[in-house]
C-alpha cells in the first residue's frame, strides 16, 4: 500500500479511535482486551478499505464501528467465555437475564457506579445499542448498520435496555 493511501485511511478512521475504544470496552468488558480488539479491528479495516471506498454516504464511523463490533464478537467466540451460550433470543433473554444480575447485586454496588454496572450487566445485544445511542450518539439507521439488524429491532432493543436501566436507576435512588 502506498504511504499516501495509508494517510487517507488514517485520516478517515483514526478520529474515531475513542468511539472504537468505548464500544470495544463495553463489548468485551475490560480495558486490556478492548485495546487488542481495537488494534485488530483497525487492521481488518485496513484490509477492507478498498471495499469501503465504493460505499457512498458513510463518513467512516459506522463502517469502522461495525468492524469493531464484529471483531469483539469474534473475540468472544474465540475466548468462549460463554462457550455454550445459546443464540441470542429477543424474548427469552430480555426476561431471564434479570436473574443473572438481580437488583440486589445492583443495590450493593457503590451508587455512583451503579449505572455503569447496569450497562455492563445487560445482554451484549442490548449493551451495544445503548452504547452506540447514548454514548456515541449514532442514529437508528447507523446503529442498524453497525449491529446488522433492522431499525425496528434497534428500537425494541433500545426500549428494553432502557427499561432495565431505568429500574437500576430507580433502585439506586431508593437506596440513597
Amino acid at each position: 500500500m502506498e504511504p499516501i493511501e495509508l494517510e487517507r485511511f488514517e485520516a478517515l478512521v483514526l478520529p474515531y479511535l475513542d468511539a472504537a475504544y468505548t464500544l470495544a470496552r463495553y463489548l468485551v468488558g475490560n480495558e486490556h482486551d478492548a485495546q487488542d480488539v481495537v488494534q485488530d479491528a483497525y487492521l481488518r479495516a485496513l484490509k477492507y478499505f478498498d471495499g469501503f471506498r465504493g460505499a457512498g454516504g458513510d463518513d467512516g464511523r459506522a463502517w469502522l464501528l461495525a468492524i469493531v463490533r464484529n471483531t469483539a464478537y469474534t473475540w468472544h467466540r474465540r475466548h468462549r467465555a460463554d462457550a455454550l451460550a445459546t443464540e441470542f433470543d429477543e424474548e427469552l433473554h430480555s426476561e431471564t437475564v434479570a436473574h443473572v444480575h438481580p437488583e440486589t447485586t445492583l443495590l450493593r454496588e457503590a451508587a455512583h457506579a451503579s449505572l455503569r454496572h447496569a450497562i455492563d450487566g445487560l445482554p451484549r445485544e442490548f449493551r451495544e445499542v445503548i452504547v452506540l445511542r447514548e454514548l456515541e450518539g449514532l442514529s437508528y439507521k447507523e446503529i442498524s448498520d453497525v449491529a446488522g439488524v433492522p431499525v425496528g429491532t434497534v428500537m425494541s432493543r433500545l426500549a428494553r435496555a432502557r427499561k432495565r436501566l431505568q429500574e437500576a436507576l430507580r433502585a439506586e435512588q431508593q437506596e440513597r
Partner: protein
Amino acid sequence: MSHPVLEAQVDAYLDGELAADDARELEAHLIQCPECARFRDGRIALRAAITAQVPALEAPDALRERVRAALRVAARKRAFRPIAGPVLWRSLALAASLAVVAVGSWRLALQRAAGGALTDQVLASHVRSLMPGHLTDVASSDQHTVKPWFNGKLDFSPPVYDFAGRGFPLIGGRLDYLNGRAVAALVYGRRQHLINVFLWPAVQGPAGGPPAATRQGYHLLRWTTPEYAYWVVSDLGIAELRDFAALLAHGDSAAATPAR
C-alpha cells in the same frame, strides 16, 4: 393509540428520530396524558444520569501509538507482497513460457492462469473459514438478518436466501477478501457438511477459473449471472453440490426477473 406504541414514539421523539408531524401530535398528547408525561420524564432522567455517570471513554495514548505502528507494518507488508501470493507468480511464469511458444495465445493463457490463482484463493478462504471461530461474522438462519448485516460493509447488497426447506439451511454470513476486493461469503449447511458461497458484482473481462474443479477433496463450482460472480465450495458430494448451486442460481434469477 396504545401505550407501548406511545412509549416507542416517546423514545424516538427524545432520540430526534420522530418525523415532525408525528412529533407535533405526540407533544399534544403529552400535555393531556399524565401517564405518558411521566414516562417521558423518566426517560429524560435516565438520559441525564447516563450523561453524568457513564461518559464515553478516551482511548489511551499508548493504544493510539500501538494502532498507528501496527497499521504502518501492515501497509508496508501489503506494499511488498505479490498481488495474489506465490501461486499467481508461478502461473504467470507458466503463462509467459506459453507465450514464447505461441504469441497469439498469450492473453488467453494469462487469463487462465489468473483464474487458477482465484480457484486457489477461494479454496484457501473456504479452508480458513472451517478453522474454529472463523466461519461466520453474523450467525443467523434468517435471511432478513444476514442480508442487512452486509450494509455498510460492502458496496453491494448480496441476495441471501434460506434453503432450509430444501435441506440446505442458511447458517450465516461473513466478509471475505477475494480477487482483490471485499466479497460476501454465505454459509449453508447440509447434514454435517458446510458450504461456502462467495459472491461479488460481476464485471466484464476474464471470468477466471474452470466452471468446476476438485482440489484437495473439495469441490468448487463457479458461474456468473448478469449481476454477480458466484463461487461455491464444499466437501459435499458433487451431485448434491450441483443441486445446491441450481437452487442458488434459481433463487437469484427469480429475484432478478421482476426488475427486468
